């Protein structure tokens, strides 16, 4: 396996466990350490390796949008200062890149905290909330609601055992009453549920969002019962690209049972039209999905208009 493919696999594994925002933080922390550790003979060599690295990261399968957005911005900044950097020594350039990484980490944290604040306001006393995937914004919102003494219960739609165990562990740690329902049996409890919370990997320009595999099935059932569906996400997940360019990872595996074997196709994520959800809650506030275009415009103005600006 090539290093690029290994990195993509590790990114997928971490995204499963941490969610996209936390993964972005992890990637920046690791990248900063790598900048320190890498042995290069010249600034030219260092920058060539950094460009190559950013090129790989921004084409991951699937694309991790917060990483994509912030790394593209980092690339722009470095390229802009390239001539000046060539005149400096290696340690100066390393310090410069590390400083830029720190700036991005601070900003990511700021957006996350705002999104969490807005998300927590969506939780009321008596709510029965269904969750499905690991999302930093979602867990943060639930935690904040607990601190605000909101009384609510959580159903976890069971998926892969390891991921479900992780979700239960996190919710138990927050002291939230939790029950687990298999994905295929949520029909039996859905009437008791008042809200469903999902995180997102990306929110695309053509009005879709990417989330954990299995999300679409849950949304289909919930929509039939008119249950409120929330997407909790920071605006860093918005992308100018359409859903078709998100590189959803598909893998075919041969499954062996006794004397027969058959192929199973596994997909990393689901993509769902935003018209299927009720609200999109971001650092910009709570928006009804009907107002997606308005929200998208606002985000575009804030990030993409300014995406070449260091402050992003």
């Amino acid at each position, binding site marked *: 396996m090539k290093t690029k493919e290994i*990195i993509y696999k*590790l990114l997928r594994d971490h995204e499963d466990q941490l969610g996209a925002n936390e993964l972005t933080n992890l990637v920046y922390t690791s990248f900063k350490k790598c900048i320190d*550790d*890498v042995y290069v003979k010249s600034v030219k060599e260092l920058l060539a*390796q950094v460009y190559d690295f950013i090129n790989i990261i921004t084409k991951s399968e699937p694309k991790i949008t917060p990483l994509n957005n912030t790394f593209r911005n980092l690339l722009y900044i470095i390229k802009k200062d390239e001539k000046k950097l060539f005149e400096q020594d290696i340690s100066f350039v390393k310090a410069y890149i590390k400083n830029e990484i720190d700036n991005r980490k601070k900003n990511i944290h700021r957006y996350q905290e705002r999104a969490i604040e807005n998300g927590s306001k969506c939780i009321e006393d008596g709510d029965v909330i269904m969750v499905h995937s690991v999302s930093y914004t979602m867990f943060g919102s639930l935690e904040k609601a607990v601190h605000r003494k909101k009384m609510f219960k959580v159903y976890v739609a069971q998926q892969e055992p390891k991921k479900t*165990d*992780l979700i239960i562990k996190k919710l138990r740690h927050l002291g939230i009453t939790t029950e687990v329902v298999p994905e295929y049996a949520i029909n039996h409890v859905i009437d008791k549920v008042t809200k469903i919370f999902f995180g997102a990997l990306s929110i695309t320009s053509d009005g879709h969002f990417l989330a954990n595999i299995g999300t679409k099935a849950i949304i289909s059932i919930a929509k039939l019962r008119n249950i409120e569906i929330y997407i909790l996400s920071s605006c860093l997940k918005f992308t100018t690209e359409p859903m078709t360019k998100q590189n959803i990872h598909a893998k075919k595996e041969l499954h062996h049972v006794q004397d027969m074997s058959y192929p199973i196709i596994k997909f990393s994520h689901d993509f769902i039209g935003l018209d299927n959800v009720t609200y999109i809650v971001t650092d910009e506030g709570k928006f009804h999905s009907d107002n997606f275009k308005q929200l998208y415009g606002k985000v575009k103005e804030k990030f993409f208009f300014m995406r070449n600006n260091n402050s992003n």
Partner: protein
Amino acid sequence: MVEVLALSNIVLPVLIFIAVYILITFEIVDKSIAVLTGVAILAITHTSGLKEMVTFVDIDTIGLLFGMMIIICVIQRTGLLRIISYKIAKLTKGSPLKILLLFGLTTAVFSAFLDNVTTILIMVPITIELTLGLGLDPRLFIITEVLLSNIGGASTLIGDPPNIMIGSATGITFNQFLTNLGLPILLIIAFSYIYVMIVRKSQLKPVDKDLKKIFSIELLFHKIRSDLHQTTFDTKYITKSIIILILVIVFFMLEQITHIRPAVVAITGGLLLFFITKTKFEEILEKVEWNTLLFFIGLFILVGVLEKVGIIELLAHKLVEVSGSNPYIIILVILWATGIISGFLDNIPLTATMIPVIMTFSNNITLPNNIIWWALSLGTCLGGNVTVVGASANVIAVGMAKKHHHHISFIDFLRLGLPIFLISMIVSSIYLIIRIWAGI
């Protein structure tokens, strides 16, 4: 008529023994079933009675194996070995050379105190994960680890079954094994590393010049740490288990003062672990390798019958004829012959056969300082490195590599295993020759 009966009494056990050996070598049936079937035929044909068979079983070996199996089961449940392997992974910082050195050395040390298969089951998965994370071919690292596991296991009384059998049969203590075999094993490890580093230089290049690879290994460490954090470790349970393990090893070392046999120490240690850690007895008993214990019991009976009918004495006389009375030739014949045979056949039945042969042989020729036993130990333990079927740990490691889609062929293993076996045999030969020459 009497002669015919006497001949059949000799021929039948020999035929059964050869048949059992073939069944074990070619894995036609489970090895325990093979030996127990042999024992059953001997009992049915009245070649040996049940009461007599019981006297053939070396209870010291069975007790030591049983006790150590219990201790290893409890230690494995603590997760301590996983934590250690993660810490070592961090120390390597993703350097292929450091992975080879640190994981190999840890495997050798673990193997000296735990059984080789357990060591391989702990060390190989993280090695595969690390090397794949670096985009390296894990085969070199897996083969080196398994070779070092067999080498490390040869250094102590409890490291490898042949040593347990030799120790139980001769009364050689834990300390004697360590002090007599420690030095040659260290030299063999050093020379093996030098050889691997020279011939596989291209696979051990540092990755600190490649940002992508450093990043990949950094993410991998986070993943391993996160997996580790999701497992709950009971520190009190771990501490108690370590204390008992250390006590057991200390008592092994003090055998000459306490006169407590290693089997008694191991079983007592295992029982103490039950009391202190409050582990459920049934759960651990389920994990004990009863299959292996039955295999040993059956094997002792088969060899005991061969001894009774005079075959062992015959083999000993043949050995005297072949090697003469020259101590250098005797030692080298035992070392190289058992080494080469162990490369292709299971070393446990070989050791079981050789122990009474050497004991009978020793009645005629005296060699000082147990040198003849060190030759047998080094030959049987290190011979397992020649081929992929030479030791159980080799087979397990190859199976684990296959699970990760990396096939280690017979030739792949031989390419590294044979030179390292030759290095081991040459170092051992020189060591033993010097000892005979110097009379130490």
